């Protein structure tokens, strides 16, 4: 479903801020894979997701989504293959527009935007049913501006928008990091539900080791711009937080220094 072959990306080449973010990254995702991605700060987790999303062109390598080489496609062209949820709940939705308008915009991802009316009556009924899945009461507030919603509600709505067109790959970039633990749990539960119901292939970056173990069928650990640990199936189910931390210091040869991850 997704192939990353020897992907390289360096930021600020030739300056003192030069940063090798991705150094020969290889990753192959099978259809239906739900991969959790962990790693220290600056390991390249978000950079990998942004490379897939086409936020900027990569320096080397190739990115193939469902058999299509998307190297040359810019961000808005790639959007038709992808669903994306960001760390900042403000990033995924248009605050000054209604809940139903946001969904209508997402529902037209990948198709030409014409002079037809932006939302049809039939769609509104569909959206009401979809919003019920979230179980947040949003189905009764479809004409409310998204700016009135809480961070968790906005993140849940973004998830719905991301999955509404059944993307080839769902990219979740630390999408619960800005939420309180209770809301984060709820948003994770919704993510799982939407992934299951739509049979999505997903990548979820997280700083929470427990979540990384509990969710998905596969876990990858990144370090210095490449994947250093890749485990799936039964082996992944047996993982513990301690084992992961040990694995990290073992493979990378460094103390696992990420406080945020340890605290979790």
């Amino acid at each position, binding site marked *: 479903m997704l192939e990353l072959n020897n992907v390289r990306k360096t930021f600020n080449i030739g300056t003192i801020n030069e940063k090798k973010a991705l150094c020969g990254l290889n990753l192959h995702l099978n259809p239906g894979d739900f991969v959790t991605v962990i790693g220290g700060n600056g390991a390249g987790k978000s950079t990998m997701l942004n490379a897939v999303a086409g936020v900027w062109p990569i320096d080397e390598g190739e990115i193939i989504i469902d058999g299509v080489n998307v190297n040359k496609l810019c*961000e*808005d062209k790639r959007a038709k293959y*992808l669903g994306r949820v960001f760390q900042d709940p403000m990033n995924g939705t248009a605050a*000054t*527009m209604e809940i139903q308008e946001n969904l209508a915009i997402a529902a*037209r*991802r990948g198709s030409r935007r014409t*002079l037809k009316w932006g939302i049809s009556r039939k769609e509104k009924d569909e959206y009401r049913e979809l919003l019920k899945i979230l179980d947040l009461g949003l189905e009764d507030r479809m004409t409310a501006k998204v700016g009135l919603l809480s961070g968790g509600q906005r993140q849940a709505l973004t998830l719905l928008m991301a999955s509404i067109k059944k993307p080839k790959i769902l990219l979740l970039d630390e999408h619960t990091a800005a939420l309180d633990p209770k809301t984060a749990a709820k948003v994770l539960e919704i993510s799982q539900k939407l992934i299951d119901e739509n049979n999505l292939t997903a990548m979820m970056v997280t700083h929470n080791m427990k979540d990384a173990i509990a969710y998905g069928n596969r876990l990858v650990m990144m370090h210095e711009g490449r994947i250093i640990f890749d485990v799936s199936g039964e082996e992944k189910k047996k993982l513990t937080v301690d084992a992961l931390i040990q694995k990290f210091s073992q493979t990378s040869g460094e103390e696992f220094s990420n406080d945020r991850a340890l605290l979790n």
Partner: protein
Amino acid sequence: MFTYFTSLPPAIAQGIIWGIMAIGVYLTYKILDMADLTVDGSICTGMAVCTVLIVKAGTPTWVGILCAMLAGMLAGLVTGIFHTAFGIPPILSGILTQLILWSVNLKIMGGTSNVGYPFNKEFFISTSALGMTLLYLVLIVALIIGVFYWFFGTELGSAVRATGCNLNMSRAQGINTDRTKVLGLVISNGIVALSGAILSLFLGFSDANAGRGAIVIGLAAVIIGEALFSRFTKNNFALKLTAVVAGGVIYYIVYQTVIFLGLDTTYLKLLSALLVAVFLGLPYWKKKYLGKHEKKKEAKKHA
């Protein structure tokens, strides 16, 4: 006092015309979230194209107005290309186009800075038939608001709105934000040039200097409309646009009143600019002051 009241209907008419321009400013400033300084030039382009076509080429009035609008749209396209293809910040892109238009406008008017309509020629917009002029202006405003209401409800219009609200989200949802920005600038400057064409008919001439500070008048109209009528407009887009036009009218009534009270007209632009500066500052001060307030409250809570 009598002269004051007789001066009001022309002021209202001019207010509506500038209000039309302010709708264009509203589109860039409020919907696209960028200050587009092209308008200072494109309003004159509208005036010049309309006047020259009617006076020198002898075209019907509507052809003059339509071509003025197209010329304004072209100006918006230039600004849009500067911004999206050249990567120049929107304000600077607008300033560059504005400067280009200074030359273009003078060239259109044949090298002079002022071209007049013949005195004996009557248009549907004129100072001599104010009643009908006001009626036509209201109809034009209603038409523009209707078209705007329709367009920004369509798939494409929604994409333009989303672009102004959240670039990140728009791109993630497959919107080509460069294209929507250019589209917004094209429409906005088309409306601005349209108001310029109508203004030239109303004043009876076009002037290369008439656009100086147009953006400030537009912003003033938007701000006044919002400050006075936001309670009534709620979230209705058509009402919001109506409030913008009303803001333009109020601006011109105040303008007329200040002149009547004997203020040196040299100061008018200074006052307009200061007024806009203060109103733009208000939300910032509010945040700063209220922010402090909240912090104190927060501190108390944790104490």
